[in-house]
């Protein structure tokens, strides 16, 4: 623009000069103009190339034009140099414009090229920035990865610490054991596991379990449904370094951490015993047959029933109870065996509550519509989720003997109660019956004493009989009490020196002079209730004295030792007893002679037998009527009822 302005300025200057010159018009001006023109030309020539528009021809033409103008008149003669000058200036301006245009064009091209160049540069720069950014991101990623890895490592370290105990346990096991994390990476294994493969334990750490045996991967991939493999035995094959195969049983279990979350998997191995196929099968069949034989011969019925009540297995012995053969029962409902549906329901309910039951009483349907009382001993089996899966148990017939036992037990219980009642009864009645008797006796005595002089001899005799009868009845009542007391009263036992005891007894009993008693020496001491054994001998000696019919009476006491018992005998030379009365004399209140002849209650032998049998002994009689009686009895050593 500056250039254009300057050109117009020059042009304006030339025009103004031309107008001034017209007014003065002298030849000097012309010369000056010519000079100016030449000057212009030379400038143009120096600036343009030789083949430019100002070639010699054009130059010549403009000279011609000059000449023509010069010739055309006088006024004309005065203006033409200015005209030429104007034209030249005009041309000059055009030329300048053209030059400017071309220059501009060039500049533009150069600018475009420059622009393109700079654009390219920017792009390259941006690209490099982008790459750097990505690098930075990658670095950050790496850093965070590194950090998380560090954290995991820390965690792992902690876990390893915690599982130190587990590791020790694994080391202590003689079976190969391997511990893996949930991704199947081996985190620990024992020496047995390593040696089985011909490696060091450290060789396995960090390796995938599936590289040891392919089934390992399966286990790891199914942690969520671990019931598929947990506690189940898999057969796997692993390889030793030298190429030999290890045939193994393997069993895995999921270990939980303190938060009950799965933490690792423990897998143990056990070598499958190398038995040739044939041998093992034969052996197996043999044991099976043997077991079956035992199974078939057992009286009890063994069975397994699914939790919904269907018989899975039942032993052959069911045929002893039910009409339905074993083969038909399998798969049927258990309740068809029961005589009462309710009973089965109650049994299952009780079993679910208790987990196992012993001697639970039930009734089964027997043969020909009978009902068989049985007892069941059963256990509830649980599956892996601790849910009841089936019932196994045994059924036993309550046999006749058991029934008898039951009845006799009940009878014994009843008897105990009756006995106690009887004792209470005996105690109370003896007291209550004796009181009035004593009163009668006493009052009769007073009448006898106070009115002795007023009474006839006959009346006196009758009063005496009255008194005697009251005394007899008193004795009978005492006898009942004594007899029942043998059972009820349990005195303390002690070592009774028999010879000493018998000597004391003789002193106390006031033996008549015509009767002598011979006691065998060295009778061993008895561990017994002293008052009881004393009573036995007292009653026997008393009987012999009471019934003695010979002038010189003799009572012999002898003893003998047997392996488990002592035998004693009291033999006299009295009247004896006809063997047909042997049973009778042992009964309470049974006498062989009228009480008026021989005052006796008839309780002596009954009490003796009661005492002897209470302590587990036996008593029997031997007699030759007229010549004497031998009462023999045995007492178990230690005289202990509990030991019998």
């Amino acid at each position, binding site marked *: 623009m500056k250039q254009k302005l300057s050109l117009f300025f020059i042009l304006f200057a030339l025009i103004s000069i031309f107008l001034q010159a017209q007014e003065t018009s002298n030849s000097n001006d012309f010369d000056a103009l010519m000079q100016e023109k030449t000057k212009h030309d030379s400038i143009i020539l120096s600036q343009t190339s030789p083949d430019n528009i100002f070639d010699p021809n054009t130059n010549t033409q403009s000279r011609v034009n000059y000449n023509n103008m010069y010739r055309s008149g006088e006024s004309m003669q005065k203006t033409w140099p200015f005209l030429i000058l104007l034209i030249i200036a005009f041309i000059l301006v055009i030329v300048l414009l053209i030059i400017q245009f071309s220059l501009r064009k060039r500049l533009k091209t150069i600018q475009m090229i420059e622009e393109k160049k700079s654009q390219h540069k920017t792009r390259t720069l941006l690209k490099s920035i982008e790459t750097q950014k990505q690098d930075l991101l990658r670095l950050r990623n790496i850093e965070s990865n590194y950090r998380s890895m560090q954290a995991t490592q820390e965690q792992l370290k902690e876990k390893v610490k915690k599982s130190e105990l587990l590791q020790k346990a694994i080391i202590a096991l003689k079976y190969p054991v391997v511990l893996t994390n949930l991704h199947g990476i081996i985190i620990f294994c024992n020496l047995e596991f390593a040696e089985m493969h011909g490696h060091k334990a450290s060789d396995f750490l960090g390796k995938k379990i599936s590289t040891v045996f392919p089934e390992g991967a399966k286990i790891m991939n199914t942690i969520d449904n671990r019931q598929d493999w947990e506690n189940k035995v898999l057969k796997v094959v692993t390889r030793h370094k030298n190429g030999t195969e290890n045939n193994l049983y393997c069993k895995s279990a999921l270990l939980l951490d303190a938060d009950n979350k799965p933490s690792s998997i423990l897998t143990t191995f056990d070598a499958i015993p190398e038995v040739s196929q044939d041998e093992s099968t034969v052996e197996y069949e043999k044991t099976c047959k043997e077991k079956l034989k035992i199974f078939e011969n057992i009286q009890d019925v063994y069975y397994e029933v699914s939790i919904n009540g269907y018989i899975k297995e039942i032993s052959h012995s069911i045929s002893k109870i039910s009409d339905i053969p074993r083969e038909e029962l399998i798969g049927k409902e258990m309740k068809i065996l029961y005589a009462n549906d309710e009973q089965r329901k109650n049994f299952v309910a009780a079993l679910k509550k208790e987990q196992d039951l012993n001697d639970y009483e039930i009734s089964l349907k027997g043969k020909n519509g009978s009902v068989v009382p049985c007892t069941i001993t059963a256990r509830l089996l649980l599956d892996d989720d601790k849910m009841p899966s089936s019932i196994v148990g045994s059924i036993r017939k309550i046999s006749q003997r058991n029934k008898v036992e039951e009845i006799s037990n009940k009878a014994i219980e009843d008897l105990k109660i009756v006995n106690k009642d009887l004792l209470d009864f005996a*105690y109370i009645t*003896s*007291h*209550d019956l*004796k*009181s009035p*008797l*004593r*009163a009668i*006796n*006493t*009052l009769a*005595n*007073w009448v006898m004493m106070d009115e002795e002089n007023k009474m006839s001899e006959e009346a006196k005799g009758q009063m005496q009989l009255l*008194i005697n009868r*009251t*005394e007899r009845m*008193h004795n009978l009542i*005492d006898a009942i*009490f*004594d007899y029942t*007391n043998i059972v009820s*009263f349990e*005195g303390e036992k002690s070592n009774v020196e028999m010879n000493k005891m018998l000597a004391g007894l003789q002193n106390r009993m006031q033996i008549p002079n015509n009767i002598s008693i011979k006691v065998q020496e060295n009778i061993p001491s008895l561990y017994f209730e002293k*008052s009881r054994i004393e009573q036995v001998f007292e009653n026997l000696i008393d009987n012999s004295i009471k019934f003695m019919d010979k002038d010189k009476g003799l009572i012999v006491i002898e003893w003998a030792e047997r392996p488990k018992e002592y035998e004693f005998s009291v033999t006299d030379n009295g009247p004896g007893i006809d063997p047909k009365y042997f049973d009778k004399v042992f009964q309470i209140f049974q006498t062989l002679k009228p009480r008026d002849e021989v005052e006796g209650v008839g309780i002596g032998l009954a009490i003796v037998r009661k005492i002897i049998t209470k302590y587990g002994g036996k008593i029997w009689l031997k007699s030759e009527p007229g010549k004497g009686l031998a009462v023999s009895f045995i007492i178990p050593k230690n005289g202990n009822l509990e030991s019998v």
Partner: protein
Amino acid sequence: MKNSKPILVLEDDIVDAMTVRRALKENEIFNDVIIKKDGEDALQYLQDESNERPAIILLDLNMPRMNGVEFLKIIRSDERLLTIPVVVLTTSRSEQDKIDTFKLGIAGYMIKSVNYQEFVKIIKTIKNYWEISEFPESKG
């Protein structure tokens, strides 16, 4: 007897009570005889301090309301009555009764004979024992 203090007899049967009275008389024992029909009556008598303390107690075991053993237990836990000698006079031949009462510190256990003459002898034995044995002086 040794002193003039009364004899306390626990006896629910009138004839037995008469027997005791008569047997005592026959044995020339002229102390007062106080007869109570059961343990409760006797305790009431003993706990009343205006009553004279008995020299001896003759005790029947089978009585209504409070029996002999129950009565013994109570007087043996009473500091004031502890030292009074007690002789059991009963029809009971039960070993258990003998053990129970001797554990409660009785001076004797006599079984009432059905025969009156026998009974007089028993009372005589008690008298003899009474006259020979020394007893603590009562504080009551």
